[in-house]
């Protein structure tokens, strides 16, 4: 096909005209080859033709002698119907309404604080255009918005405001305030109870009181402290520490670190509300750990007693290596014994249970549900095709990535200071108290801070599936 679309168009038109002319030429033919030629095959077929209903049909037409006029209508209709399926394609080739390549953002770069940074950059770039009404315009999310500049002390006047707010100074937003648009604060921000905000960025600390709702995102260039029973929207991120209380909901968090710190009053309230259900469903030892609030620090030089090497107990046909640094465990529900020490990556093709005290110098990949008891240390990443449950007092130095849900027990630490690591659970994430995550947390379903996680029962596995 020619490169030039104009030439391409002309070729198509020429072909179409050729077909029309050819069909007219056929109709103009006034000969029947069977009349002029002696064709034994044709004669033989004639014998067949001149029998039965087909013979009668053509005989009637021959009598009328006007079948060519019928074909003068049928033939063009045939051509039209033959070409018609191509017509939408030809029109699209000509009009080119959708001929651009799929858009790829060439400058896209993974940034957990994208909302905050792009919002601030746009505001600061346009604040110099403020008019006499102390307002300026900026384009956010493809819509042009009016940004009102005001003193943070007067923020209460802007309840239910339809404009984006640019607050100068420390903002102390009183209870039951609702802001339909985003808010930017140049200093510290304090939200009181039952505040509803679409989005907020604070240049300094951001304190969110209990029962508040962030519809889209919240960000701070310093610390964020979140009270209990808050909804943190799509993303909550900060440059320093992000503290979250009990019963908070989230989808994405970023902080150095993210720390689930529960207020004692909230804990007591929760225990009173759910006491009966929790006592029936939880293990006693687990509840004891929750209330003791002790944190076990990992000591790299420690050498737990009676360490065993995995692999010695497995049968040869259940074990297969893919490299020198990796072992593969296949059959049955795999249980790593108490106080084991493994110095390789481990791939487990089924559900797995890692007993307490185990130390793994490597990465774990599990094709089923991975459940880790308390006091397990993994100096690597954890991947699972289903859910991951990490017990209490565990130490994970790498990322946690699950196609199912992630449950993290009390006093567990993930990552290390100065580095970013991630916890990603497709379905949901549940964090207990005193969980510390250095970096990023993301779920498509919903994340929540809870009192305890118990064991992953069949019911929860089905929910995950």
């Amino acid at each position, binding site marked *: 096909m020619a490169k030039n679309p104009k030439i391409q168009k002309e070729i198509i038109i020429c072909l179409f005209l050729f077909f029309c002319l050819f069909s007219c030429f056929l109709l103009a033919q006034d000969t029947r080859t069977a009349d002029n030629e002696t064709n034994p095959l044709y004669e033989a077929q004639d014998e067949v033709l001149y029998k039965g209903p087909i013979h009668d049909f053509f005989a009637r037409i021959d009598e009328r002698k006007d079948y060519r006029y019928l074909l003068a209508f049928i033939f063009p209709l045939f051509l039209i119907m033959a070409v018609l399926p191509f017509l939408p394609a030809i029109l699209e080739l000509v009009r080119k309404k959708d001929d651009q390549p799929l858009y790829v953002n060439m400058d896209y770069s993974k940034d957990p604080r994208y909302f905050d940074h792009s919002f601030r950059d746009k505001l600061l770039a346009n604040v110099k255009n403020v008019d006499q009404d102390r307002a300026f315009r900026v384009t956010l999310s493809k819509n042009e918005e009016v940004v009102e500049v005001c003193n943070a002390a007067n923020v209460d006047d802007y309840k239910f405001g339809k404009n984006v707010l640019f607050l100068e100074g420390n903002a102390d937003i009183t209870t039951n305030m609702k802001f339909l648009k985003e808010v930017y604060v140049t200093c510290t921000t304090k939200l009181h109870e039952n505040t509803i905000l679409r989005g907020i960025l604070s240049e300094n600390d951001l304190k969110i009181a209990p029962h508040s709702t962030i519809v889209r995102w919240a960000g701070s260039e310093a610390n964020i402290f979140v009270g209990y029973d808050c909804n943190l929207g799509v993303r909550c991120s900060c440059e320093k520490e992000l503290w979250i209380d009990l019963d908070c909901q989230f989808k994405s968090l970023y902080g150095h670190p993210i720390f689930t710190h529960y207020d004692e009053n909230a804990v007591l309230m929760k225990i009173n509300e759910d006491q009966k259900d929790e006592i029936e469903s939880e293990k006693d030892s687990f509840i004891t750990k929750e209330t003791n609030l002790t944190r076990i620090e990992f000591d790299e030089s420690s050498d737990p007693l009676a360490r065993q090497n995995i692999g010695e107990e497995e049968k040869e046909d259940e074990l297969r290596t893919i490299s020198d640094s990796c072992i593969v465990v296949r059959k049955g529900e795999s249980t790593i014994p108490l106080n084991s020490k493994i110095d390789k990556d481990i*791939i487990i093709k089924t559900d797995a249970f890692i007993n307490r005290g185990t130390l793994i110098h490597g990465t774990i990949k599990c094709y089923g549900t991975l459940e880790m008891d308390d006091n397990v240390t993994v100096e690597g990443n954890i991947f699972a095709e289903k859910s991951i449950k990490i017990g209490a007092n565990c130490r994970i130095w790498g990322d946690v990535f699950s196609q199912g849900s992630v449950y993290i027990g009390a006093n567990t630490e993930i990552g290390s200071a100065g580095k970013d690591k991630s916890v990603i659970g497709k379905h949901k994430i549940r964090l207990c108290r005193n969980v510390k995550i250095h970096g990023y947390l993301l779920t498509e379903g919903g994340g929540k801070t809870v009192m305890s996680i118990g064991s992953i029962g069949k019911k929860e596995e089905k929910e995950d599936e």
Partner: protein
Amino acid sequence: MGMVILVSILRAYILVMAAILFTYTVRHFIFSINRSVGEQKLYYQDILDSDLPYVTVIVPMHNEELVAEHSMENIANTNYPKDRLEIIPIEDHSEDATLSILEQYSEKYDNIHPYVRDTGARGKPVGMNEVMEFAHGDIIIVFDADYLPPKGIIRDIAISFLDPEVGAVMGRVIPSNVSSNLLTKLLDIERTGGYQIDQQARYNLNLVPQYGGTVGGFRRQVALDLGGFNPSIITEDTELTFKLYQQGWKVVYANRAECYEEAPETWHVRSRQVTRWARGHCQVFFKAFFGMIKSNYLKPIEKIDGILLLSIYFIPLIMLVGLFVSLALFFLGKMNLFTSVFIFILVASYSSFGNAAPFFQMGSGILLDGGHMRARLLPMLLFSFTFYLWFISKGAFLAIIDTIFKRVPEWQKTQRFRKK
């Protein structure tokens, strides 16, 4: 009696062909359903990790003066940490200004070290084998010279190697020159069906996504342990895919790791390209078929999908033979209803081979991509169907001859069309 046997054989051939085509159609239908309404598996791009692996980016080049500057500019401006990245463009027996362009970039950027090959056999597998011996990266990422990688793509590809089972990663290829002519538009639709639906569904279902040799990466040491790339096979990417699976590694597909490529703009260039792909892929079939069946690392469903993937470039040849068989039955007067309906089913698959896909798979892909009017070009796939029927069959036939007579095909490069 002889006629009866002949007719029986011919009809049996038609029957087997109908069954094979039906299998492929069902397979592609499952992929379409899974991608459209099934649960999608997360890819690793959302993982934020400070400890990124050391990466070597390789860009094989032979007479690429039209495109070298664009690809090098994009790769050099990546956001991947410079202290964890080295870029090695392979200048392979070029006769144009490719080398001078690479030297300019080498002077401008510290981590770009061109590797010049002007002796020895020419070809991508040979060049990559030599570079892998001295490359520092744990991970090798390969881009073709005409590709335009976005800033974040190296990180998006490299991050998946945190999973210890991942041996290779494949990103998504998007033609940039869609608006050129009918051929590029059809190729864009085919790519959409092949990547957005086919590859992603195979990743979702834990089957066998394919490493495509461009916009992708693999573990350097694993590739070396597997013997590197075979210079006699012209689709080294397919060979690596099946070697990895046979040894228990996995290939993952990264739908969001999108990269622009330049699609062929003439039917002649496309014919050479697709014949080469078919020939190489079918060569791998002969080498990897029994390995896939015997491998202890693969589940039965993975083996089935792997074999279907291996065989896919033989289907046009078998369809072409099937058409002749139907003709023979027609002239023998033995053509029955089933045979004629088979032709309908045969065409119903409509480009369901190679990286292309049946029309319903492409339609679903166009919908997911947000395309609209380009879906109306689907009937034009009739032309590429007949085109592929011939040229892919030719490639498959050549692969059979190569295997029987142990010939080594000559490496060919795809012509570029970008304006200077």
